[in-house]
């Protein structure tokens, strides 16, 4: 839990993809074994910053994501720490068999970074939106799956990912993200952060939805509802201890994510809850649908991914809680 803060100003910071790109340069400075692979999106993924500083350790793969993932695997076999980045949908979906057989199965030390996750990429529309990569990444045994909410957590988790020996996927977004954490906040892979304590209901959120959960908490507090808000920056391995405690102590859980409900964080939390301390749950996410073109704000509104939807889910959960 963040001990002192109770109010968050949530002013816009860097996009998590940009924070990734900057952290990657720093990681490159710290460790000369870090190499970077790109699939013709280095400006969008901000790996162009690494390219600029370390041209010899940057490998352009062209529009060929499957090869990129397996090239990264080759680097890892040879002792390098490869980071391969692209839009989430392209690197995960076109590279999935490579991630399975060639990276996860031998547990290689490969880092995959997906940018432009979720529907908040906006105008480009569904073909470029990734709404399923949590499902895919979590079905790779041994993979760590990270989904940071802001620039501070992204920076810390990129370094944690590089230090972790084994495969990691990091999900980042296109839009500027509200800053949640003080610069000095510490993060640990697999340890969720309790942002706000509360006793009536818990909101477990990840990525962009963490800020929406905080906003929802503020509104619900005014209604006299005590909401615990937890940032699950690590989707896998799941922090089951924090989940169990939330279930036991608040008896109702809402999970909120910019992802299909099918296969997302929510179903994983539901499983942990069912195995430990069953309680009522509600889910905020995409309901088995692709989105469309529009501004990020319009889409998040239309597809039910804003604080209003978290608030409604909390009300539903409390109505069902005995």
């Amino acid at each position, binding site marked *: 839990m963040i001990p002192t803060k109770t109010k968050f100003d949530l002013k816009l910071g860097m996009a998590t993809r940009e924070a990734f790109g900057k952290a990657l340069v720093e990681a490159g400075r710290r460790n000369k074994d870090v190499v970077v692979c790109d699939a013709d999106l280095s400006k969008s993924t901000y790996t162009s910053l690494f390219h600029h500083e370390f041209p010899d350790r940057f490998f352009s793969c*062209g529009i060929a994501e499957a090869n990129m993932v397996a090239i990264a695997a080759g680097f890892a076999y040879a002792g390098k720490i490869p980071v391969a980045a692209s839009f989430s949908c392209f690197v995960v979906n076109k590279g999935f068999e490579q991630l399975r057989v060639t990276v996860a199965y031998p547990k290689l030390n490969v880092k995959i970074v997906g940018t432009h996750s979720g529907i908040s990429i906006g105008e480009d529309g569904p*073909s470029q939106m990734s709404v399923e990569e949590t499902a895919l990444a979590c079905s790779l045994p041994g993979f760590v799956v990270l989904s940071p909410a802001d620039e501070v957590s992204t920076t810390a988790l990129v370094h944690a990912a590089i230090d972790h020996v084994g495969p990691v996927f990091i999900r980042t977004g296109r839009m500027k993200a509200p800053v949640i954490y003080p610069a000095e906040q510490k993060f640990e892979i697999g340890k969720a952060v309790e942002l706000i304590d509360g006793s009536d209901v818990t909101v477990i959120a990840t990525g962009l939805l963490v800020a929406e959960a905080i906003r929802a908490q503020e509104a619900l507090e005014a209604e006299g509802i005590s909401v615990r808000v937890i940032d699950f920056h690590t989707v896998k391995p799941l922090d089951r201890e924090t989940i169990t405690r939330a279930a036991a102590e608040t008896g109702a859980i809402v999970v909120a994510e910019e992802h299909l409900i099918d296969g997302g964080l929510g179903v994983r939390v539901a499983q942990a809850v069912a195995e430990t301390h069953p309680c009522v749950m509600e889910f905020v996410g995409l309901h088995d649908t692709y989105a*469309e073109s529009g501004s990020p704000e319009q889409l998040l509104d239309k597809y039910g991914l804003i604080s209003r939807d978290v608030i409604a889910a909390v009300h539903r959960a409390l109505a069902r809680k005995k």
Partner: protein
Amino acid sequence: MPGPISHSKIEPDSFTPFRRCSSSASCKIEVPMMQKKTVPEMQVIAKRMRREIIEMIGAAKSGHPGGSLSAVELVVTLYFNEMRHDPANPKWADRDRFILSKGHAAPVLYAAMAESGYTPLDQLNTLRKLGSIYQGHPDVRFIPSLEASTGSLGEGVSLALGMALAARLNASPSRTYVMLGDGEIQEGQVWESAMFGAFHKVDNVVAIVDYNGIQLDGFVKDIMEVKPLADKWRAFGWHAIEINGHDIPAIQAAFQEAAGTKGVPTAIIAHTIKGKGVSFMENNPKFHGTAPTPDEVKLALQELQ
């Protein structure tokens, strides 16, 4: 040419999946096809389409002008001279088909479809806005007369081959055209489909590579060289033709050569200029995926008088 089909507002969720079409025989109604345009007429349309492209991307404040402009003459020649199609009867079973595999160049396709009468001209400037039929990438949920939803690179040749083999099974004269980017052909699926097309002798497919030398992050030669391009298609069993992709008579001749080529599919390597027609966009990687500012729109439209 019939007027634009009216489009009611479509919700993507309410979209019903493709029903099985009855066999081609029962679809063989006599239809008045698009009338063929002359070269000078097409040149006029091409210039108008370039203006529409600039305007719609300018209005959207995002989008891909470079690869839309490089493909104008190719698309114009298809829609106004080469393809057998009928905007009044978009689902005519025996029509020729066009797939924009490089879906990010949607504006050139939207301009051609609107100019042909498939979709409303006066809504082009709603491009990329919530609820617009002109989605960021071609989306059949919003424009059912589109041949395919695209946007993830590398898939169009496969789609074209599937459609063309269906035409063969139906003994239909339908031909399918598919346009690829030169960056796009770095995708392995393109070569899987190339091998497949040659193996199955799918001679009713024409692949057109918009060889503009630029991809998203820079020049193709710096990101992932694709040379020698025609040799690659030939080694994969295709008939390959190299042309200037802005020269309409050369494009017509290539399509004619393709139609006369039996037993193998044809690839047209169209040498083009990315951003063609707007001086400050030509051969400028910046305008792969950057919308012109209002001032740049004005400047571009002046050049395109």
